[in-house]
């Protein structure tokens, strides 16, 4: 009990100094807010609420330093940012499969990192269930960063700058795995994309005008894609088989986690936000353009026992019926989900 009081006291002192510093700075520069600290008006309640890891500027900036630090990898050549680039909504532009230490190829396409606060599970198969512990996967994967948590902490603890910055946030030394993971989550949780032209449109804000084609595309998406890419996050977070393959020898997707045959070939429904920038597409990056994706849905779908029921049409055909007009309208609409403010936000940059 007494220990908790001391922690509370320390927090109070830390908070006090934080606010005092904040006061001083206020006079000189405009208010600086941790990105993504508030819930966008059109978004649901987050899974990982800000209160679970209250954003502060120091912790957030420290998390950002970690995200871009190549020392998190064994070779010192690969950072989280190597595979997750801001210019591509933190996906890996132009890489079908991710490339880790020594050019080793991973098994999957690196997804965009955005709106992670709202995710009920992470990774294409949902194998990671918490934003704080998820980084342990890329750090220890031999095809990604090939490093151990022990080594990462040793490297951080050997660096006076990190020692000082962590001590400033947590008020104690040495740097622990708890501090490291919580700090990294300050950054990843902050990656909020909610200022696309579409968002301005639904929130009735300035610059929210959509063209006739874009509006038609929105209507088509709500009708034909929403069963999976629904809601303001453009994903229902479920695992589905969208007819890419007949068998799944290399990557069984969700079944890899659950061990259940009925999950073979099912993958997490990805968000469509910033999708114009996150090519190549699908868990293995097999499609290069949105036009190819739409052709897949309209005419190239492959049958398998776990194919989602949505794709079995009354006429016996597979997929989604899409006219050429609907396809071009959809592509136009998908471009309205590009959030240039997110891509250019200097607070998120290295």
């Amino acid at each position, binding site marked *: *009990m*007494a220990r*908790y*009081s001391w922690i*509370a*006291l320390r*927090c*109070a002192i830390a*908070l*006090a100094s934080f*606010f*005092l510093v*904040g*006061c001083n700075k*206020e006079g000189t520069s405009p208010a600086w807010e941790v990105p993504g600290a508030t819930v966008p008006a059109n978004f649901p309640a987050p899974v990982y609420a800000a209160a*679970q890891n209250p954003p502060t500027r120091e912790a957030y900036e420290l998390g950002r330093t970690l995200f871009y630090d190549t020392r998190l990898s064994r070779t010192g050549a690969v950072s989280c940012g190597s595979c997750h680039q801001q210019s591509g909504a933190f996906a890996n532009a132009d890489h079908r499969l991710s490339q880790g230490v020594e050019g080793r190829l991973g098994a999957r396409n690196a997804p965009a990192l955005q709106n992670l606060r709202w995710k009920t599970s992470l*990774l294409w198969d949902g*194998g*990671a*269930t*918490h*934003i*704080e*512990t*998820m980084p*342990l*996967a890329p*750090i*220890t*994967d031999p095809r990604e960063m090939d490093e151990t*948590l*022990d080594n990462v*902490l040793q490297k951080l603890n050997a660096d006076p700058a990190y020692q000082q910055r962590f001590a400033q946030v947590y008020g104690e030394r040495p740097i*622990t*795995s*708890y501090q490291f*993971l*919580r700090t990294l*989550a300050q950054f990843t949780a902050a990656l909020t994309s909610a200022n696309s032209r579409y968002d301005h449109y639904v929130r009735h804000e300035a610059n929210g005008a959509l063209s006739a084609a874009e509006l038609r595309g929105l209507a088509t998406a709500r009708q034909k894609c929403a069963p999976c890419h629904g809601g303001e996050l453009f994903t229902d977070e479920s695992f589905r088989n969208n007819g890419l393959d007949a068998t799944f020898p290399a990557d069984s997707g969700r079944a*890899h*986690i*659950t*061990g*259940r045959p009925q999950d073979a070939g099912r993958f997490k429904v990805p968000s469509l936000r910033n999708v114009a920038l996150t090519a190549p597409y699908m868990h293995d990056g097999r499609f290069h353009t949105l036009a190819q994706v739409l052709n897949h849905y309209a005419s190239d779908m492959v049958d398998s026992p776990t194919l989602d029921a949505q794709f079995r049409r009354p006429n016996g055909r597979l997929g989604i019926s899409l006219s050429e007009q609907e396809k071009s309208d959809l592509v136009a609409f998908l471009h309205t989900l590009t959030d240039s403010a997110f891509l250019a936000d200097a607070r998120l940059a290295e």
Partner: protein
Amino acid sequence: MKLRKISAIFFYLLFSSAALTSCKEDSDMQPKVGTLDVAIDHVVGTATLALNTGSYATPAGDQFTVSTFKYYLSNFTLKKADGTTHLVPESYYLVDEAVPASKTFTLSGIPAGDYTSLSFTIGVDSARNVAGAQTGALDPQKNMFWSWNTGYIFTKLEGTSPQAPNTALVFHIGGFKAPHNTIRTISPSLKGATIQVQGTQTPTLHLKADVLKMFTGPTTVRFTQLYNTMGGANSVVVADNQAAGMFVVDYVHAN
């Protein structure tokens, strides 16, 4: 704006000093509490477990050695004769044969009284498997955490056996979701003994953990067939064996 922030500081300071005083008062007013020591011996049948050097055989005749043996015990709950129970908060322990000190630990803050039974979990409750960064026994630095399929490894036994196809034994028992849930809560018999928790003395519960019981019980494990499991159906088989009698109470020492 500035004023509001400064008053916020004072509230925090006020709050923390209030917490300091209230703590003192609390402990005066609280009912008497005591502690219970737990001491665990690791055996293989009738032999004492010796990492690397000891060589053992299962009742089915498979030979083996053990290089790693560690496991989580959690959620210790004590029960009085009148049925009232006390769950020891934050009772998570990683017991590791390679770290002798980890084989004894102290459960504290237990309301004084006579307890006639106890239960605990082999493993970690499902909530803590998905609760994000953790400290202490649950720190992922303990290398008992699966990152690609989030969750703790509840029991880790590694070793060798000439019967195993590549001679390696890898038993990583874990998983908290149906149908491959390996969380097992057990209540080994106190054999009529009572655990008397008081302020003045610390009783010790002596437990015995028998490695052999991972391979015997409801299902006999033969290393020709089952020698490597990291979660999934085979881990459930081993977890069921563990639940059936891996932990027994040796004796309760009163003081």
